């Protein structure tokens, strides 16, 4: 981890690292974070189907009939050059953009025409490329808002402090602290989000997304602006999230990170699906090399 060479651009794409063995039982924090969840049943089954998804902005086709599946319990990498449509794909899945064609299905249920908060409640959570925390709230409060998806107290329940409200509030603290411990920023639970250092804000975003209890966690360039050591740590975190039974969709520019952490990769170019397969295959795929990895591969 203290390797100085991390600062330089790797000359060759690092070897595909075998994913760590699933459920690491020694991790107390992981168990806490996964409390109250069904640990992934049916690993390997299709969780999300993206079926001929198209997004058009006026005359520009940002996403052109893209189809791929996300399997339960995997870390799927979504890569492609700038403007390839990665974030557009993300936004179409989470309901920010209305797709012009195709369908997105979570466990067989279409997400189209669903409200954004409904999609999140159905089990699809995301982080943002440009961090979007609620700056005036503390780290723990940010996570507590994420936990809202599982709470049901009404205005009157809160006003008069009914037992359910108190139970939910206690569990907010418990679960919130457990999640902050899981991502490693529990010390800063009572610090305003805007006062946190950059790296911790990224971690807080992940904790907040995990708080919604997602079936699929979408990370939009979580390593942007990280130094190599921090990236190394982030890879660890992403693996431990998967080991906890979450499925992860990862958009990332950093090849080392993507190759090191994902089980499978989907490559987009100019809004079209270019290739799909395990990292090893993708690294050797001539189309991908010429379109995306060309320069690095020829070094």
């Amino acid at each position, binding site marked *: *981890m203290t390797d100085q060479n991390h600062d330089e651009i790797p000359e060759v794409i690092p070897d595909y690292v075998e994913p760590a063995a699933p459920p690491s039982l*020694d*991790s*107390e*924090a*992981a168990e*806490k974070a996964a409390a109250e969840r069904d640990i992934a049943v049916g690993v390997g089954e299709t969780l999300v189907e993206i079926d001929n998804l198209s997004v058009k902005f006026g005359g520009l086709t940002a996403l052109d009939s893209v189809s791929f599946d996300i399997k339960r319990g995997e870390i799927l990498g979504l890569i492609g050059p700038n403007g390839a449509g990665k974030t557009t794909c993300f936004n179409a899945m*989470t309901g*920010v953009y209305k797709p012009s064609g195709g369908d997105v299905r979570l466990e067989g249920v279409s997400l189209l025409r669903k*409200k*954004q*908060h409904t999609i*999140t*409640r159905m089990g699809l*959570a995301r982080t943002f490329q440009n961090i979007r925390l*609620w*700056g*005036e*709230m503390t780290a723990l*409060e940010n996570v*507590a*808002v*994420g936990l*809202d*998806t599982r709470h049901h*107290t009404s*205005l009157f329940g*809160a*006003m*008069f*402090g009914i037992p359910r*409200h*108190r139970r*939910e*509030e206690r569990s*907010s*603290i418990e679960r919130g*602290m457990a999640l902050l*411990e899981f991502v*490693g*920023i*529990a*010390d*800063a*639970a*009572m610090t*305003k989000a805007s*006062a*946190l*250092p950059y*790296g*911790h804000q990224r971690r807080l975003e992940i904790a907040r*997304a995990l708080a*919604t209890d997602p079936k699929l966690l979408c990370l939009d360039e979580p390593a942007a602006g990280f*130094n190599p050591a*921090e990236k*190394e*740590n982030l890879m*660890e975190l992403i693996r*431990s999230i998967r080991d906890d039974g979450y499925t992860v969709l990862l958009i990332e520019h950093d090849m080392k990170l993507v190759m090191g952490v994902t089980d499978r990769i989907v490559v987009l170019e100019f809004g079209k699906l270019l290739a799909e397969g395990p990292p090893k295959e993708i690294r050797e795929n001539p189309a991908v090399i010429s379109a995306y990895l060309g320069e690095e591969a020829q070094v």
Partner: protein
Amino acid sequence: MSTEPVLGSEGAQKHLEELAEHANKPGRFAGLNQWWEQQPRVKQWAILLPIAAIVFFLPVINPPIITTEPGNDWPLACFDMARFALVALGLNVVVGQAGLLDLGYVGFFAVGSYVAALWTSPDSSAVHIPYLWTLPLAMLVTVVFGVCLGIPTLRLRGDYLAIVTLGFGEIIRLLATIIPAMRGQQGFKEVGHPPGTGSDGVPIFTNNHGTPWYMLTVGIIVLVMILLGNIERSRVGRAWIAIREDEDAAEIMGVPTFKFKIWAFATGAAIGGLSGALFAGQVGFVNNQKFDVVTSVLFLCAVILGGSGNKLGVIIGGALVSYIPNRFTSIADYKYLIFGVALVLLMIFRSQGLIGARAHLLAYARSARARTRELAARRRTPEPTPDPAQEAAS
């Protein structure tokens, strides 16, 4: 990779430690606030109760210098302060917490006043009910108005919402003018008041006797503050702040923002209506002259002056906005100029308002704070043989 805790680089780690320490140590400026938070509940009450007593008996005490006499009757001035404070408290829910700029808040205040007038004044042909019953009724009716206004308009944001609410305030005022049953400028006389007569047979609540009205209003303010505090430290309060800070992010994180915005509007409207009904009762006369846009702006001024988002702040802001023109009668004509300049200065030097401390949004924050402190302490004195599992948990 070992089972190292998933933490950032060493530099960031150090920064985090500093942050954690800072969070637990009184800062230079936030010293008082930090100190206050660390006191046990009992001690907090011990300090609060005498202050509350002084505030409650303010019209009786009639402190020299501070008093508005001889220019204005002091107990009546006190009631006016309390009324403004209550309005500010309600508007704060909408503007300060949910971040919805409402320029027509006087509309809800007007609806509350008219509800009290319509059901108690002899000038009205409606069924007459005891005055105190008009308080919950006024809240109910304004909630209906709030929801009706909210459903079509809360899809709008920022300036657009402000313009629509501005229109709403005017619509209410104009309706009072053009609907014959609302009696326009002629208005309703002898609006009811709470029951009860003193030992000399004179009613306790009269138009020119401010003290009982003041005490009633302060009692209501305390009750409203407690209930609003409960809401603040719940999922509702957190959702409001999240909507204020970044509405899109809130929606994407699973918060049904539309529902929470309607709740904010309804809560704010109810308090505005309550305040209006109290005002109508005290003055005893309601017509269409007191509910103009400028009053809305004055309400908003109270919220921003005191500290948008802070309950205590907006109460002080509301009281000040009412107090200054009453105390300094010679400059009362220039009150809008003075408040305008005050707002500009405030935005330059203290944009968070007079009392701008952030609100607490967790009902059981104390246990989390204790845990954070414990974690920081554990980090400073590492255990001799750290258990890898425990390390990962920290």
